[in-house]
């Protein structure tokens, strides 16, 4: 994919909110929020993750694809048809927006893994999720000019090269309705600005937007490779999405423990804890030492269950949180929250290494899951 967009150093912007009651709203407000922080980006990347937008296909994995050419599309569609039952396929609707140039071909497929591919003779059956992860890795790594933007159920990532508000208009996000929206404005520093490299980075229904840099990328990448993940998108943030998938979905750790592994307390702090906690955190650091994220970061992680905000352990990147009724907001700047929620019940400065977890209420989560069956 093209990488000739140059390189200019500075920061990034992130913003996200969740209606914990599952109420769905259009993409208009998240565009306004991220647009307020326009000057934190430089036009080399913008993107959104939207949850609850495909209730009519809630049981299917929604594969969002980017293609460099028709040839890439043909090859990838052959690959998909070979492994999945495709319930519906269509180009992702876009509109012409000045400033958005050189868009790849953008398609989406609502698919289920084929039963016969899950149960290969003589092999342990794969879960649908694991099968889909493997397929995404194979496309990103193996099919030239084809990249998966997202692969979760009832969610999608919409990203590209441009300012985030331009990308939002390009993808017509005001026409979608979701219960959670997460956005990113990019200012690439160490890696190229290209369509596949825009945030969010995703796998299944995980999405990650990130301000900062992951200096531990090499260690994290090699660790993830042991579990079958392939980092093919040339950007450090990719590892965060796979680490959440590995630790939460596959290893079953609750969000606070995942965060304690990724942004582990310093040994000095662990030493001061009561014995039981000290032992638990020591074990966590020993088992997941290679999952530790080093370097400055503030991230928002989305999943179908909700949103997690996390800072590095010494708060080298900004993050503010707010609550208003059933809605929780996270953003790089307080003003980006105030822009869409002028009078929150509470606003606070998020602390280093202390996650903000905002999940759907149980009832709303149940409803979101059963949408397709109902």
């Amino acid at each position: 994919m093209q990488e000739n967009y140059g390189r200019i150093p500075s920061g990034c912007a992130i913003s996200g909110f969740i209606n914990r009651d599952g109420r769905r709203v259009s993409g208009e407000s998240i565009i306004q929020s991220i647009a307020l922080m326009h000057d934190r980006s430089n036009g080399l990347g913008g993107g959104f993750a939207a949850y609850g937008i495909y209730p009519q296909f809630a049981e299917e994995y929604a594969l969002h694809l980017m293609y460099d050419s028709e040839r890439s599309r043909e090859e990838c569609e052959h690959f998909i048809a070979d492994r999945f039952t495709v319930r519906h396929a269509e180009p992702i609707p876009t509109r012409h927006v000045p400033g958005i140039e050189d868009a790849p071909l953008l398609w989406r497929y609502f698919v289920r893994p084929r039963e016969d591919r899950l149960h290969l003779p003589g092999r342990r059956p794969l879960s649908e999720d694991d099968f889909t992860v493997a397929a995404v890795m194979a496309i990103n790594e193996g099919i030239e000019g084809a990249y998966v933007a997202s692969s979760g159920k009832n969610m999608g990532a919409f990203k590209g090269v441009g300012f985030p508000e331009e990308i939002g208009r390009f993808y017509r996000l005001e026409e979608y309705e979701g219960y959670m929206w997460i956005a990113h404005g990019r200012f690439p520093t160490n890696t190229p600005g290209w369509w596949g490299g825009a945030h969010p980075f995703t796998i299944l229904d995980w999405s990650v937007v990130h301000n900062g840099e992951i200096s531990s990328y090499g260690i994290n990448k090699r660790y993830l490779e042991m579990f079958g993940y392939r980092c093919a998108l040339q950007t450090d943030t990719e590892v965060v999405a796979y680490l959440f998938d590995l630790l939460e979905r596959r290893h079953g750790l609750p969000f606070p423990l995942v965060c304690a592994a990724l942004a582990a307390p310093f040994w000095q702090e662990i030493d001061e804890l009561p014995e039981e906690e000290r032992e638990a955190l020591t074990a966590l650091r020993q088992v997941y030492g290679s999952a530790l994220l080093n370097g400055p970061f503030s991230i928002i992680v989305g999943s179908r269950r909700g949103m997690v905000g996390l800072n590095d352990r010494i708060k080298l990147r900004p993050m503010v949180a707010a609550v208003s009724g059933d809605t929780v907001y996270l953003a790089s700047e307080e003003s980006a929250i105030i822009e869409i929620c002028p009078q929150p019940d509470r606003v606070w400065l998020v602390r280093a290494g202390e996650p903000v977890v905002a999940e759907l209420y149980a009832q709303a989560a149940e409803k979101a899951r059963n949408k397709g069956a109902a």
Partner: protein
Amino acid sequence: MLKIDARGMHYRELNRRIKEAVAAGERELILENVNGQRYLGTGVNAPVRIEVYGVPGNDLGAFMDGPSIFVCGNGQDGAANTMNSGKIVIRGHAGDVLGYGMRGGKLHILGDVGYRVGIHMKAYKKQIPVLIAGGTARDFCGEYMAGGILIVLGLERGQQPLVGDYCGTGMHGGVMYLRGEVDPRHLGREVAVRPLEEEDLALLREHLGEYCSDLGLDLEEIMAEPFTKLVPVSSRPYGNLYAY
């Protein structure tokens, strides 16, 4: 007096209008519906009064030389960055890296402040910056501080620690006053706790008196609690670095 409705206005436009008004002799400005506009007060080198309603953006009053800014709302990161003179009063909390490299003037914050507050503050002769936070401060408060006065009051802090870890790490000038006791594990290796002298109390009364009148607080109530004084125990740690 000039009122500007800043809703939806880019920071460049807003700052251009402020500078033009000041150049034309305006001495009192009211900025309404401010939200996220950066660098307010930057490059305004006159003793004007600016009232801000809303949330001003990052680097409020950066390099400022003269104006007094009163914010009715919360502040963001980087307020008073390398400020030279004047005053900023924030009637709410404020973010990280406040008063970075501040070399004069005053920053008065009513509520909590974030990480790295007062980092690299410095003083020269009569140029003595003063930074006062009414709530708590997080890690790296006064890190590498080279001069000036940093006061943390911890009002209404409940069980929260007054300051976070690494307070005063690398500090080699100036003084910090923390209202209440500080757990030694929060302190950097380059600072020491000293008893307050009469002149410290006089200094606190002077600066906190102004702080209290800016924010409508009771000075006697604040002075009723004992303070912890922190001073550097090294001076010019890098003095010989390039002199061998």
